[in-house]
Protein backbone atom coordinates (compact mmCIF):
# COMPACT_ATOMS: atom_id res chain seq x y z
CA UNK A 1 0.00 0.00 0.00
CA UNK A 2 1.51 3.36 -0.95
CA UNK A 3 1.65 6.36 1.37
CA UNK A 4 -1.29 8.12 -0.18
CA UNK A 5 -3.66 5.16 -0.03
CA UNK A 6 -2.63 4.44 3.56
CA UNK A 7 -3.71 7.89 4.72
CA UNK A 8 -6.86 7.81 2.62
CA UNK A 9 -7.94 4.44 4.04
CA UNK A 10 -7.56 5.71 7.57
CA UNK A 11 -9.47 8.86 6.72
CA UNK A 12 -12.39 6.82 5.40
CA UNK A 13 -12.22 4.42 8.34
CA UNK A 14 -12.76 7.04 11.02
CA UNK A 15 -15.36 8.94 9.07
CA UNK A 16 -17.48 5.84 8.61
CA UNK A 17 -17.54 5.50 12.39
CA UNK A 18 -18.66 9.13 12.81
CA UNK A 19 -16.43 10.01 15.76
CA UNK A 20 -15.50 13.31 17.34
CA UNK A 21 -12.50 14.91 18.98
CA UNK A 22 -12.03 18.46 20.23
CA UNK A 23 -8.63 20.10 19.82
CA UNK A 24 -7.71 23.44 21.30
CA UNK A 25 -4.76 25.54 22.38
CA UNK A 26 -4.59 26.89 25.89
CA UNK A 27 -1.78 28.33 27.97
CA UNK A 28 0.89 27.10 25.54
CA UNK A 29 -0.49 23.57 25.25
CA UNK A 30 -2.03 21.84 22.24
CA UNK A 31 -4.73 19.67 23.76
CA UNK A 32 -6.96 16.96 22.30
CA UNK A 33 -10.07 15.52 23.95
CA UNK A 34 -11.59 12.34 22.54
CA UNK A 35 -15.24 13.09 23.18
CA UNK A 36 -16.74 9.60 23.45
CA UNK A 37 -14.00 7.98 25.55
CA UNK A 38 -13.02 11.03 27.58
CA UNK A 39 -9.32 10.51 26.80
CA UNK A 40 -7.12 13.60 27.02
CA UNK A 41 -3.87 14.12 25.11
CA UNK A 42 -1.27 16.76 24.47
CA UNK A 43 0.15 16.74 20.95
CA UNK A 44 2.96 18.31 18.95
CA UNK A 45 2.40 20.83 16.17
CA UNK A 46 2.26 18.24 13.38
CA UNK A 47 -0.20 15.99 15.18
CA UNK A 48 -2.36 19.01 15.91
CA UNK A 49 -2.55 19.72 12.18
CA UNK A 50 -3.34 16.10 11.29
CA UNK A 51 -6.21 15.61 13.72
CA UNK A 52 -9.50 16.90 12.34
CA UNK A 53 -12.61 17.24 14.51
CA UNK A 54 -14.21 14.15 12.97
CA UNK A 55 -11.23 12.35 11.47
CA UNK A 56 -7.70 12.67 10.20
CA UNK A 57 -7.24 15.34 7.54
CA UNK A 58 -7.28 14.03 3.97
CA UNK A 59 -4.31 13.35 1.73
CA UNK A 60 -4.64 16.65 -0.10
CA UNK A 61 -4.40 18.50 3.21
CA UNK A 62 -1.39 16.41 4.21
CA UNK A 63 0.36 17.32 0.96
CA UNK A 64 -0.43 20.99 1.53
CA UNK A 65 0.93 20.69 5.04
CA UNK A 66 4.19 19.14 3.82
CA UNK A 67 4.55 21.84 1.22
CA UNK A 68 3.86 24.66 3.67
CA UNK A 69 6.00 23.35 6.52
CA UNK A 70 9.46 22.30 5.42
CA UNK A 71 10.19 21.05 8.93
CA UNK A 72 7.70 18.19 8.51
CA UNK A 73 8.67 15.05 6.59
CA UNK A 74 6.60 12.23 5.16
CA UNK A 75 8.18 9.91 7.71
CA UNK A 76 6.95 12.12 10.52
CA UNK A 77 3.46 12.12 9.04
CA UNK A 78 3.42 8.35 8.74
CA UNK A 79 4.70 7.99 12.26
CA UNK A 80 1.91 10.24 13.48
CA UNK A 81 -0.73 8.37 11.50
CA UNK A 82 0.45 5.09 13.00
CA UNK A 83 0.11 6.55 16.46
CA UNK A 84 -3.41 7.74 15.65
CA UNK A 85 -4.32 4.31 14.29
CA UNK A 86 -2.99 2.56 17.39
CA UNK A 87 -5.01 4.79 19.71
CA UNK A 88 -8.09 4.46 17.53
CA UNK A 89 -7.80 0.66 17.64
CA UNK A 90 -7.75 0.88 21.43
CA UNK A 91 -10.94 3.00 21.53
CA UNK A 92 -9.02 5.97 22.90
CA UNK A 93 -9.24 8.25 19.88
CA UNK A 94 -12.16 8.79 17.51
CA UNK A 95 -14.10 6.46 19.75
CA UNK A 96 -17.63 5.32 19.13
CA UNK A 97 -20.06 4.93 22.01
CA UNK A 98 -23.38 3.24 21.39
CA UNK A 99 -24.71 4.39 24.76
CA UNK A 100 -25.71 7.70 23.23
CA UNK A 101 -28.57 5.96 21.45
CA UNK A 102 -30.39 4.98 24.65
CA UNK A 103 -32.62 7.23 26.73
CA UNK A 104 -30.57 7.40 29.94
CA UNK A 105 -33.64 7.37 32.15
CA UNK A 106 -34.48 3.91 30.79
CA UNK A 107 -31.17 2.75 32.22
CA UNK A 108 -30.80 4.67 35.43
CA UNK A 109 -34.45 4.43 36.42
CA UNK A 110 -37.22 6.97 36.72
CA UNK A 111 -37.56 7.30 40.45
CA UNK A 112 -37.55 10.54 42.41
CA UNK A 113 -34.50 10.56 44.66
CA UNK A 114 -33.84 14.23 45.39
CA UNK A 115 -35.97 17.08 46.67
CA UNK A 116 -35.41 20.78 46.93
CA UNK A 117 -37.50 21.76 49.93
CA UNK A 118 -38.61 25.38 49.81
CA UNK A 119 -38.90 25.69 53.55
CA UNK A 120 -39.32 29.45 53.31
CA UNK A 121 -40.97 31.46 50.60
CA UNK A 122 -39.81 34.53 52.41
CA UNK A 123 -36.47 36.26 52.49
CA UNK A 124 -34.66 38.85 54.59
CA UNK A 125 -32.76 40.25 51.61
CA UNK A 126 -34.11 41.89 48.45
CA UNK A 127 -31.61 40.87 45.79
CA UNK A 128 -32.38 42.56 42.50
CA UNK A 129 -31.55 39.56 40.33
CA UNK A 130 -33.52 37.08 42.43
CA UNK A 131 -35.32 34.56 40.20
CA UNK A 132 -37.55 33.82 43.17
CA UNK A 133 -39.33 37.17 43.13
CA UNK A 134 -37.13 38.31 46.05
CA UNK A 135 -38.13 35.32 48.09
CA UNK A 136 -41.84 34.83 47.58
CA UNK A 137 -41.67 33.16 44.14
CA UNK A 138 -44.34 35.62 43.00
CA UNK A 139 -46.82 34.23 45.51
CA UNK A 140 -47.52 34.53 49.21
CA UNK A 141 -44.71 34.81 51.74
CA UNK A 142 -45.09 31.42 53.40
CA UNK A 143 -43.10 29.04 55.57
CA UNK A 144 -43.22 25.28 55.17
CA UNK A 145 -44.66 23.50 58.19
CA UNK A 146 -42.70 20.59 59.68
CA UNK A 147 -45.66 18.37 58.77
CA UNK A 148 -45.41 19.25 55.09
CA UNK A 149 -41.63 18.68 55.23
CA UNK A 150 -42.11 15.26 56.80
CA UNK A 151 -44.70 14.43 54.18
CA UNK A 152 -42.10 15.32 51.55
CA UNK A 153 -39.62 12.95 53.20
CA UNK A 154 -42.22 10.15 53.11
CA UNK A 155 -42.92 11.01 49.46
CA UNK A 156 -39.30 10.69 48.38
CA UNK A 157 -38.82 7.47 50.35
CA UNK A 158 -41.82 5.99 48.56
CA UNK A 159 -40.90 7.35 45.13
CA UNK A 160 -37.21 6.47 45.21
CA UNK A 161 -37.60 2.74 44.57
CA UNK A 162 -34.32 0.92 45.04
CA UNK A 163 -32.23 4.07 45.20
CA UNK A 164 -30.43 4.28 48.51
CA UNK A 165 -28.89 7.76 48.43
CA UNK A 166 -31.46 10.51 48.87
CA UNK A 167 -30.62 14.20 48.59
CA UNK A 168 -32.55 16.83 50.50
CA UNK A 169 -31.81 20.47 49.81
CA UNK A 170 -33.15 23.10 52.20
CA UNK A 171 -33.79 26.15 50.09
CA UNK A 172 -35.83 29.33 49.99
CA UNK A 173 -36.28 32.28 50.03
CA UNK A 174 -34.10 32.09 53.08
CA UNK A 175 -34.30 28.72 54.86
CA UNK A 176 -32.83 30.00 58.13
CA UNK A 177 -36.07 31.97 58.56
CA UNK A 178 -37.60 28.56 59.22
CA UNK A 179 -34.75 26.76 60.96
CA UNK A 180 -36.99 25.07 63.53
CA UNK A 181 -38.82 23.31 60.70
CA UNK A 182 -35.48 22.40 59.08
CA UNK A 183 -34.39 20.76 62.32
CA UNK A 184 -37.65 18.80 62.65
CA UNK A 185 -37.58 17.64 59.05
CA UNK A 186 -33.93 16.63 59.41
CA UNK A 187 -34.62 14.69 62.61
CA UNK A 188 -37.57 12.90 61.01
CA UNK A 189 -35.55 11.87 57.96
CA UNK A 190 -32.71 10.54 60.12
CA UNK A 191 -35.20 8.65 62.30
CA UNK A 192 -36.50 6.63 59.36
CA UNK A 193 -33.17 6.00 57.61
CA UNK A 194 -32.72 2.48 58.94
CA UNK A 195 -36.26 1.24 58.45
CA UNK A 196 -36.51 2.77 54.98
CA UNK A 197 -33.08 1.57 53.87
CA UNK A 198 -32.21 5.07 52.71
CA UNK A 199 -29.25 7.34 53.35
CA UNK A 200 -30.12 11.03 53.42
CA UNK A 201 -27.68 13.74 52.37
CA UNK A 202 -28.50 17.32 53.30
CA UNK A 203 -27.58 20.66 51.77
CA UNK A 204 -28.68 24.09 52.95
CA UNK A 205 -28.39 27.29 50.98
CA UNK A 206 -28.30 30.53 52.96
CA UNK A 207 -27.71 34.23 52.46
CA UNK A 208 -26.03 34.37 55.86
CA UNK A 209 -28.15 37.11 57.45
CA UNK A 210 -29.33 34.92 60.32
CA UNK A 211 -26.13 32.95 60.87
CA UNK A 212 -24.88 33.05 64.48
CA UNK A 213 -22.63 30.91 66.65
CA UNK A 214 -25.50 28.72 67.80
CA UNK A 215 -27.04 27.84 64.44
CA UNK A 216 -23.63 27.64 62.78
CA UNK A 217 -22.71 24.81 65.13
CA UNK A 218 -25.91 22.93 64.35
CA UNK A 219 -25.58 23.46 60.61
CA UNK A 220 -21.95 22.42 60.60
CA UNK A 221 -22.75 19.20 62.40
CA UNK A 222 -25.81 18.19 60.41
CA UNK A 223 -25.49 19.54 56.85
CA UNK A 224 -23.37 17.51 54.44
CA UNK A 225 -22.96 20.55 52.24
CA UNK A 226 -23.66 24.26 52.56
CA UNK A 227 -24.08 26.88 49.87
CA UNK A 228 -23.25 30.37 51.18
CA UNK A 229 -24.36 33.27 49.02
CA UNK A 230 -21.93 36.17 48.58
CA UNK A 231 -21.09 37.81 45.26
CA UNK A 232 -17.53 39.01 45.89
CA UNK A 233 -16.23 42.56 46.26
CA UNK A 234 -18.31 44.75 48.56
CA UNK A 235 -19.48 47.12 45.83
CA UNK A 236 -20.36 44.21 43.53
CA UNK A 237 -22.26 42.36 46.23
CA UNK A 238 -24.10 45.46 47.38
CA UNK A 239 -25.21 46.49 43.92
CA UNK A 240 -27.49 43.45 43.75
CA UNK A 241 -27.74 41.90 47.21
CA UNK A 242 -29.62 44.46 49.26
CA UNK A 243 -31.28 44.47 52.64
CA UNK A 244 -35.00 45.02 53.07
CA UNK A 245 -34.18 48.71 53.57
CA UNK A 246 -32.35 48.86 50.26
CA UNK A 247 -28.86 49.03 51.74
CA UNK A 248 -25.91 46.83 50.86
CA UNK A 249 -25.74 43.47 52.65
CA UNK A 250 -21.98 42.83 52.49
CA UNK A 251 -21.13 44.14 55.94
CA UNK A 252 -24.14 42.35 57.43
CA UNK A 253 -23.25 38.90 56.08
CA UNK A 254 -19.61 38.59 55.10
CA UNK A 255 -18.02 37.84 58.49
CA UNK A 256 -20.71 35.35 59.46
CA UNK A 257 -20.44 33.53 56.14
CA UNK A 258 -16.66 33.38 56.45
CA UNK A 259 -16.95 31.94 59.96
CA UNK A 260 -19.25 29.23 58.59
CA UNK A 261 -16.80 28.46 55.80
CA UNK A 262 -13.84 28.32 58.17
CA UNK A 263 -15.62 25.80 60.39
CA UNK A 264 -15.93 23.44 57.46
CA UNK A 265 -12.59 23.95 55.73
CA UNK A 266 -10.97 20.59 55.08
CA UNK A 267 -13.71 18.71 56.90
CA UNK A 268 -17.07 19.19 55.24
CA UNK A 269 -18.28 20.48 51.91
CA UNK A 270 -19.35 24.03 51.31
CA UNK A 271 -19.32 26.57 48.51
CA UNK A 272 -19.37 30.30 48.76
CA UNK A 273 -21.60 30.99 45.82
CA UNK A 274 -21.65 34.28 43.94
CA UNK A 275 -23.49 35.52 40.89
CA UNK A 276 -21.95 37.71 38.24
CA UNK A 277 -24.04 39.86 35.96
CA UNK A 278 -23.62 42.31 33.11
CA UNK A 279 -22.69 44.82 35.81
CA UNK A 280 -19.53 42.99 36.89
CA UNK A 281 -18.28 41.11 33.87
CA UNK A 282 -14.79 41.27 35.42
CA UNK A 283 -15.92 38.54 37.80
CA UNK A 284 -12.47 36.94 37.98
CA UNK A 285 -11.65 39.79 40.35
CA UNK A 286 -14.53 38.68 42.57
CA UNK A 287 -13.33 35.08 42.59
CA UNK A 288 -9.82 36.21 43.53
CA UNK A 289 -11.25 38.59 46.13
CA UNK A 290 -13.19 35.76 47.76
CA UNK A 291 -10.07 33.57 47.76
CA UNK A 292 -8.02 36.36 49.31
CA UNK A 293 -10.67 36.85 51.99
CA UNK A 294 -10.17 33.23 53.05
CA UNK A 295 -12.77 31.20 51.16
CA UNK A 296 -11.36 27.92 49.92
CA UNK A 297 -14.31 26.59 47.93
CA UNK A 298 -15.79 29.03 45.46
CA UNK A 299 -18.50 28.97 42.82
CA UNK A 300 -19.26 32.18 40.95
CA UNK A 301 -22.00 31.77 38.37
CA UNK A 302 -23.39 33.78 35.47
CA UNK A 303 -26.78 35.27 36.28
CA UNK A 304 -29.96 33.69 34.94
CA UNK A 305 -31.86 36.70 33.65
CA UNK A 306 -34.32 37.71 31.00
CA UNK A 307 -33.35 39.66 27.91
CA UNK A 308 -33.68 43.41 28.47
CA UNK A 309 -33.51 43.37 32.28
CA UNK A 310 -30.41 45.54 32.16
CA UNK A 311 -27.97 43.24 33.93
CA UNK A 312 -28.16 40.15 31.67
CA UNK A 313 -25.01 38.77 30.04
CA UNK A 314 -25.30 39.52 26.35
CA UNK A 315 -23.93 37.66 23.37
CA UNK A 316 -21.53 40.55 22.76
CA UNK A 317 -20.14 40.14 26.30
CA UNK A 318 -18.97 36.60 25.63
CA UNK A 319 -15.45 37.40 24.45
CA UNK A 320 -14.84 39.46 27.58
CA UNK A 321 -16.32 36.76 29.82
CA UNK A 322 -14.24 34.03 28.20
CA UNK A 323 -11.13 36.14 28.63
CA UNK A 324 -12.02 36.39 32.32
CA UNK A 325 -12.11 32.59 32.64
CA UNK A 326 -8.75 32.36 30.83
CA UNK A 327 -7.19 34.91 33.16
CA UNK A 328 -8.68 33.23 36.20
CA UNK A 329 -7.27 29.87 35.06
CA UNK A 330 -3.76 31.29 34.79
CA UNK A 331 -4.07 32.81 38.25
CA UNK A 332 -5.61 29.57 39.57
CA UNK A 333 -2.49 27.65 38.60
CA UNK A 334 -0.42 29.90 40.85
CA UNK A 335 -2.59 29.18 43.87
CA UNK A 336 -0.77 28.22 47.01
CA UNK A 337 2.44 29.78 45.71
CA UNK A 338 2.35 32.91 47.88
CA UNK A 339 0.02 35.04 49.99
CA UNK A 340 -1.35 36.76 46.91
CA UNK A 341 -2.43 33.42 45.49
CA UNK A 342 -4.06 31.44 48.30
CA UNK A 343 -5.12 27.90 47.57
CA UNK A 344 -8.78 27.47 46.62
CA UNK A 345 -11.13 25.27 44.63
CA UNK A 346 -13.18 26.84 41.84
CA UNK A 347 -16.28 24.78 41.06
CA UNK A 348 -16.14 25.09 37.28
CA UNK A 349 -12.44 24.24 36.94
CA UNK A 350 -12.79 21.20 39.13
CA UNK A 351 -13.32 18.54 36.45
CA UNK A 352 -13.38 14.95 37.62
CA UNK A 353 -11.33 13.33 34.85
CA UNK A 354 -10.15 10.51 37.10
CA UNK A 355 -13.45 8.95 38.09
CA UNK A 356 -16.34 11.08 37.06
CA UNK A 357 -19.88 9.95 36.48
CA UNK A 358 -20.85 7.18 34.08
CA UNK A 359 -21.99 7.85 30.56
CA UNK A 360 -25.69 7.50 31.47
CA UNK A 361 -25.39 10.21 34.09
CA UNK A 362 -23.71 12.42 31.53
CA UNK A 363 -26.39 11.67 28.95
CA UNK A 364 -29.22 12.50 31.32
CA UNK A 365 -27.57 15.63 32.71
CA UNK A 366 -29.67 17.51 35.21
CA UNK A 367 -32.31 15.35 36.84
CA UNK A 368 -34.76 18.23 37.28
CA UNK A 369 -38.31 17.11 36.63
CA UNK A 370 -37.19 13.49 36.48
CA UNK A 371 -35.45 12.32 39.65
CA UNK A 372 -35.21 15.77 41.23
CA UNK A 373 -38.26 17.84 42.21
CA UNK A 374 -38.87 21.05 44.11
CA UNK A 375 -41.49 21.22 46.87
CA UNK A 376 -43.18 24.50 47.81
CA UNK A 377 -44.28 25.43 51.35
CA UNK A 378 -47.81 24.32 50.37
CA UNK A 379 -46.54 20.93 49.18
CA UNK A 380 -46.78 21.60 45.44
CA UNK A 381 -44.31 19.83 43.17
CA UNK A 382 -42.29 21.51 40.41
CA UNK A 383 -39.41 20.28 38.19
CA UNK A 384 -36.86 22.37 40.09
CA UNK A 385 -36.47 25.55 42.10
CA UNK A 386 -36.17 27.62 38.93
CA UNK A 387 -39.67 26.65 37.76
CA UNK A 388 -41.48 27.17 41.06
CA UNK A 389 -44.42 29.54 40.68
CA UNK A 390 -44.87 28.92 36.96
CA UNK A 391 -48.31 27.23 36.71
CA UNK A 392 -47.42 25.61 33.38
CA UNK A 393 -44.86 23.52 35.23
CA UNK A 394 -46.90 22.50 38.27
CA UNK A 395 -46.40 18.71 38.36
CA UNK A 396 -48.64 17.83 41.29
CA UNK A 397 -48.56 17.87 45.06
CA UNK A 398 -47.53 15.75 48.02
CA UNK A 399 -51.08 14.49 48.62
CA UNK A 400 -51.91 13.38 45.09
CA UNK A 401 -48.41 12.83 43.71
CA UNK A 402 -47.65 13.59 40.06
CA UNK A 403 -50.87 14.70 38.35
CA UNK A 404 -49.22 16.21 35.29
CA UNK A 405 -47.10 13.34 33.94
CA UNK A 406 -46.80 14.88 30.47
CA UNK A 407 -44.71 17.76 31.80
CA UNK A 408 -42.52 15.39 33.79
CA UNK A 409 -42.05 13.24 30.69
CA UNK A 410 -40.92 16.28 28.72
CA UNK A 411 -38.06 16.74 31.21
CA UNK A 412 -37.02 13.11 30.95
CA UNK A 413 -36.90 13.49 27.20
CA UNK A 414 -34.70 16.58 27.50
CA UNK A 415 -31.42 14.65 27.44
CA UNK A 416 -28.39 14.33 25.21
CA UNK A 417 -29.94 11.56 23.17
CA UNK A 418 -32.65 13.92 21.97
CA UNK A 419 -31.07 17.39 22.03
CA UNK A 420 -30.09 18.09 18.43
CA UNK A 421 -27.82 21.04 19.24
CA UNK A 422 -25.84 18.91 21.71
CA UNK A 423 -25.23 15.91 19.47
CA UNK A 424 -22.35 17.56 17.64
CA UNK A 425 -21.00 19.51 20.62
CA UNK A 426 -17.77 18.27 22.19
CA UNK A 427 -18.59 19.49 25.71
CA UNK A 428 -21.82 17.51 26.01
CA UNK A 429 -20.47 14.92 28.47
CA UNK A 430 -19.28 17.66 30.84
CA UNK A 431 -22.43 19.78 30.91
CA UNK A 432 -24.99 17.02 30.34
CA UNK A 433 -26.96 19.27 28.02
CA UNK A 434 -27.16 22.30 30.27
CA UNK A 435 -29.76 23.80 32.54
CA UNK A 436 -33.42 23.14 31.72
CA UNK A 437 -34.44 26.47 33.20
CA UNK A 438 -31.99 28.33 30.99
CA UNK A 439 -33.29 26.48 27.95
CA UNK A 440 -36.85 27.40 28.83
CA UNK A 441 -36.17 31.00 29.82
CA UNK A 442 -34.31 31.84 26.64
CA UNK A 443 -35.70 29.48 24.01
CA UNK A 444 -39.04 28.28 25.41
CA UNK A 445 -37.86 24.82 24.46
CA UNK A 446 -36.42 22.28 26.91
CA UNK A 447 -34.64 20.58 24.02
CA UNK A 448 -32.80 23.72 22.94
CA UNK A 449 -29.91 24.75 25.20
CA UNK A 450 -29.12 28.38 25.94
CA UNK A 451 -26.32 29.31 23.58
CA UNK A 452 -24.60 31.89 25.77
CA UNK A 453 -24.34 29.41 28.65
CA UNK A 454 -22.98 26.78 26.25
CA UNK A 455 -20.24 29.14 25.12
CA UNK A 456 -19.23 29.82 28.70
CA UNK A 457 -19.29 26.12 29.57
CA UNK A 458 -17.01 25.25 26.66
CA UNK A 459 -14.53 27.90 27.82
CA UNK A 460 -14.64 26.70 31.44
CA UNK A 461 -14.11 23.07 30.49
CA UNK A 462 -11.18 23.91 28.20
CA UNK A 463 -9.59 25.73 31.11
CA UNK A 464 -10.44 22.90 33.50
CA UNK A 465 -8.71 20.38 31.23
CA UNK A 466 -5.69 22.66 30.82
CA UNK A 467 -5.43 23.02 34.60
CA UNK A 468 -5.69 19.24 35.02
CA UNK A 469 -2.81 18.74 32.59
CA UNK A 470 -0.61 21.39 34.18
CA UNK A 471 -1.24 19.99 37.65
CA UNK A 472 -0.56 16.45 36.41
CA UNK A 473 2.76 17.60 34.97
CA UNK A 474 3.68 19.25 38.26
CA UNK A 475 2.78 16.10 40.20
Amino acid at each position, binding site marked *: MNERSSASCFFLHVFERGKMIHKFEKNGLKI*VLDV*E*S*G*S*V*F*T*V*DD*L*MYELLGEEGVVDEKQIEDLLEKHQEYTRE*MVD*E*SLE*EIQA*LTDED*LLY*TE*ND*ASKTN*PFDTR*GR*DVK*ALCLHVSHDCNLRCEYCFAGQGDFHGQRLLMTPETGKKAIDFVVKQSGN*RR*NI*EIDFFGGEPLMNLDAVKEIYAYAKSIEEESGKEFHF*TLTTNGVLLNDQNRAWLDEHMDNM*VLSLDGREEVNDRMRKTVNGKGSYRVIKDDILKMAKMRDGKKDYYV*RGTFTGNNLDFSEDVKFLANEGFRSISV*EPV*VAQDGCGYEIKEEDLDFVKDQYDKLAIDYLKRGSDENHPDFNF*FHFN*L*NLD*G*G*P*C*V*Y*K*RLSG*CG*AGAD*YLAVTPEGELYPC*HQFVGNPDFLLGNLDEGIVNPEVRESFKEANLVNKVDCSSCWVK*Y*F*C*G*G*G*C*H*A*NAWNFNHDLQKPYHTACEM*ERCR*VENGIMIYIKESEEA
Partner: protein
Amino acid sequence: MKHIKMIKKGSLKQTANKGCGECQTSCQSACKTSCTVGNQKCKQAQ
Protein backbone atom coordinates in the same frame (compact mmCIF):
# COMPACT_ATOMS: atom_id res chain seq x y z
CA MET B 1 4.60 7.68 21.22
CA LYS B 2 6.47 10.65 19.82
CA HIS B 3 3.76 12.98 18.58
CA ILE B 4 0.90 12.43 21.02
CA LYS B 5 1.04 12.04 24.79
CA MET B 6 -1.83 10.48 26.69
CA ILE B 7 -2.62 12.54 29.76
CA LYS B 8 -5.73 10.67 30.78
CA LYS B 9 -6.98 7.34 29.50
CA GLY B 10 -10.70 7.76 28.97
CA SER B 11 -13.06 5.22 30.42
CA LEU B 12 -16.48 6.52 29.43
CA LYS B 13 -17.15 3.52 27.24
CA GLN B 14 -16.40 1.18 30.14
CA THR B 15 -19.09 2.89 32.22
CA ALA B 16 -21.86 1.94 29.82
CA ASN B 17 -22.98 -0.94 32.06
CA LYS B 18 -23.38 1.30 35.11
CA GLY B 19 -26.09 3.92 35.44
CA CYS B 20 -27.25 3.04 38.96
CA GLY B 21 -28.70 6.51 39.56
CA GLU B 22 -27.21 6.85 43.03
CA CYS B 23 -25.16 9.96 42.28
CA GLN B 24 -26.21 13.55 42.73
CA THR B 25 -29.09 14.46 40.46
CA SER B 26 -28.75 18.13 39.76
CA CYS B 27 -26.92 21.40 40.15
CA GLN B 28 -27.89 21.70 43.79
CA SER B 29 -24.41 21.26 45.28
CA ALA B 30 -22.88 24.53 44.25
CA CYS B 31 -24.04 26.37 41.25
CA LYS B 32 -27.83 26.27 41.43
CA THR B 33 -28.17 27.37 37.81
CA SER B 34 -25.70 25.84 35.40
CA CYS B 35 -25.90 22.08 35.18
CA THR B 36 -22.43 20.61 35.26
CA VAL B 37 -22.02 16.86 35.53
CA GLY B 38 -18.35 16.47 34.57
CA ASN B 39 -17.13 17.34 38.04
CA GLN B 40 -19.47 15.08 39.95
CA LYS B 41 -18.43 11.93 41.74
CA CYS B 42 -19.56 8.42 40.88
CA LYS B 43 -21.18 6.80 43.92
CA GLN B 44 -20.01 3.36 42.77
CA ALA B 45 -16.42 4.57 42.71
CA GLN B 46 -16.60 6.09 46.18
